[in-house]
């Protein structure tokens, strides 16, 4: 049977999450004749470390992160590795190690480091379609949040 959802390239989805997205997408398609686009899925600590390395190397102080303590721990691991004149892969590894130890303590700098978190495109939905998407998600996702800036639906399973 034809799938009524697609994913942006590089999006990682676990098998059980795929089944849940399929359920929502089928319901949404039945109500609107439109497919959904998954814009983000579960993130690995390695890809998070690479993204944070890019920010830090570009002069960012990680102030955008809501968990300031966790962000500063990561900045410190970057600063220490730079001071020790480590190469880029080693610096990323140092950031990843910090992220991994935070995850063990259930501290998630991004909601997507937690399993079962996905984002869905909302920008091309009409207000009525947004309501239909929320309805389709009821009982499948444990949390459905319409984020405005940047625009997307965040779902937690």
């Amino acid at each position, binding site marked *: 049977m034809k799938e009524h959802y697609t994913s942006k390239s590089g999006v990682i989805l676990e098998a059980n999450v795929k089944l849940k997205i399929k359920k929502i997408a089928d319901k949404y398609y039945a109500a609107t004749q439109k497919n959904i686009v998954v814009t983000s899925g579960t*993130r690995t600590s390695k890809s998070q470390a690479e993204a944070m390395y*890019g920010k830090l190397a570009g002069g960012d102080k990680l*102030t955008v992160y809501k968990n300031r303590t966790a962000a500063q721990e990561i900045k410190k691991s970057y600063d220490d590795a*730079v001071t020790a004149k480590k190469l880029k892969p080693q610096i990323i590894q140092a950031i990843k190690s910090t992220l991994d130890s935070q995850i063990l303590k259930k501290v998630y700098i991004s909601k*997507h480091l937690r399993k079962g978190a996905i984002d869905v495109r909302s920008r091309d939905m009409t207000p009525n379609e947004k309501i239909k998407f929320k309805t389709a998600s009821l009982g499948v996702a444990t949390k459905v949040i*319409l*984020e*405005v*800036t940047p625009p*997307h639906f965040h779902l937690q399973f």
Partner: protein
Amino acid sequence: MMKAIIKSFLLFYLALLSIGCVEVKTSITENNNTVEHFLVSSTELTKNDVITINLPKVRPKNLAIIDPNGQMFIIQSAEADVLMMREEEFLLLKTLEIPIRNSKGTIWINGQKSKQVIFEQAGKYIIYFADNLETEPENTFNFSAQITVK
């Protein structure tokens, strides 16, 4: 519903407020390659000014501007089929200039794509570079800076 939307925007906005003009540190040397910092040269502008953005060597692939109402205007995103220049050119740019007057970005009105003038009103705008414009800033490689248009 409206409360949740306002709360969500305020949280995003407050987080970015703390950034202000991105730091003006000298560049750092890494693996013998000079890495330039992200920098918006002036944060207070008038309608006749141009936003000048210095870009680091490694930068996100998309650009959007968020207006004082939280509306996101896409300027560069191959995936959204919105291009101010070819992707390869965008990834090699050292400096990007955006005039305040008449610059346009893409938004979706009732699900329909539409090109609109960005700087229609005075107030605080956020320049937002990100690899993914459809997820939380915590979840994507991004740089942002706030400017005030008088």
